[in-house]
């Protein structure tokens, strides 16, 4: 499989504090790679370096050709004084209303086009952000904590959606997550980051590794049953949308 992203020996320190220490990995085309790690482990910094938002002290990020990147930031904070609909928000990436509508349909919130962004729930906001990333027809999707502010059932639905988007578009995905077990089914590789790469491999291999247990302790065992739950997630989203229109 061809390499889409080749990250080599990244080092970064901010304010005299080491944030990234010799981080290297490769992301093959079409694969999903998940970064996990505790708070302050440098996950977001690593993503910012890869996106070109932050210059590293040393090391390189290379790809065989200029990539179209779709980026889903961690949070969307829009000032309350700015009236903006979902359609208006998406139009910032693509003015074609039909394509915006398609993108919303792909993230399963087709009816929110004319909703004000300020009235969206956490899960809807994440989907709108994902729709904007998809509008770029990305070869690489970079998702920073895509399930932030979403309840556990919604998190699973979002990860399923992300997996399906990969299957449909064949784009590679680099995402940050704080919970390995939720994301296990949706990822090919996992990197456990704590300023340096603690361990790297398939989700099964990482979760069994000593470095992982040391970093996260036993608390992760609490989450092993999440995959048993299958609530009507699509129904939830549709119900929310109905609610707004009446």
């Amino acid at each position, binding site marked *: 499989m061809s390499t889409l992203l080749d990250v080599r020996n990244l080092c970064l320190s901010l304010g005299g504090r080491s944030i990234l220490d010799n981080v290297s990995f490769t992301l093959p085309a079409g694969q999903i790679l998940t970064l996990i790690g505790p708070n302050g482990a440098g996950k977001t910094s690593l993503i910012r370096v890869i996106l070109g938002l932050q210059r590293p002290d040393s090391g390189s990020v290379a790809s065989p050709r200029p990539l179209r990147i779709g*980026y889903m*930031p961690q949070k*969307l904070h829009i000032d309350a*004084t*700015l*009236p903006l609909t979902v359609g208006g928000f998406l*139009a*910032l990436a693509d003015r074609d209303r039909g394509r915006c509508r398609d993108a919303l349909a792909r993230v399963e919130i087709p009816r929110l086009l004319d909703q004000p962004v300020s009235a969206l729930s956490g899960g809807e906001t994440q989907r709108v952000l994902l729709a904007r990333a998809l509008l770029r027809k990305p070869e690489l999707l970079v998702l920073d904590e895509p399930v932030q502010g979403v309840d556990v059932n919604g998190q699973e639905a979002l990860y399923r959606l992300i997996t399906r988007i990969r299957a449909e578009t064949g784009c590679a995905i680099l995402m940050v997550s704080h919970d390995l077990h939720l994301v296990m089914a949706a990822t090919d590789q996992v990197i456990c980051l704590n300023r340096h790469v603690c361990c790297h491999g398939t989700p099964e291999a990482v979760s069994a590794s000593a470095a992982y247990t040391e970093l996260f302790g036993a608390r992760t065992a609490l989450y092993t049953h999440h995959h048993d739950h299958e609530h009507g997630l699509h129904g939830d989203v549709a119900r929310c949308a109905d609610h707004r229109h009446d």
Partner: protein
Amino acid sequence: MTDFLLLALLAGLGVALVSGPLGAFVVWRRMAYFGDTLAHAALLGVAAGLWLAIAPGLAVTLVCMLMALGLLALQRQHSLATDTLLGILSHSSLALGLIAMYLIPGARMDLEALLFGDLLAVTQGETLGIWITAVVVLALLHRLWTPLLAITVHEDLARVEGVKVGWVKTALMLTLALVIASAMKVVGVLLITALLVIPAATARRFATGPGQMAMLGSLAGMTAVCLGIAASWWWDTPMGPSIVLGAGLLFVLSLAWPRRHS
């Protein structure tokens, strides 16, 4: 209606027209304090103009633009909070401007006119200048509308999508400086920010989209100009403050309007 009143009206309307969209960005991006700092620097510009014997309009514009570029550079440092820095710069430049004017020999400046505007004394040339500025600024804002909105909504996201964030910010800041320099005659350096912020805030109550808010802001500002000039004509009140009070009144009235779900 007499000529000078017509000129005053034209000049006021020109400033109000452009303050709609620009004021919207000032509100969305929380730049009111930047506006104040630039306005106070305008006073320094007047002093510099007298000192160097160059046209006051040109001197004010140049000093405002220099200040705008300085503020942009300062935003990149992180040792002091931006509002603290702005507080220091804003009031230091106001004080320096006042003292410089006091020290310049033979300068008999009408300080009240500088601080609160002197719309009735606006000349044809100045009115033309205001409208040229308005047209140029409106054209620029129209052209940069999408990237400006994109960096306002999420700067990093805009950068990843290819927006030249630094350039767009610089353009907005210089635009603000231009408008403030040209608006000085209308409401004076102490009240300019009000003309940017209040009509935009009024428009927010009614707008469902950013473009609509910009247009309604212009409309609110122009209404305030008419109200202020009329009040000033009938009751002989100072014109600049009357315009700002008119804008304030419209805002208070807008609060009575039932709030839309947006």
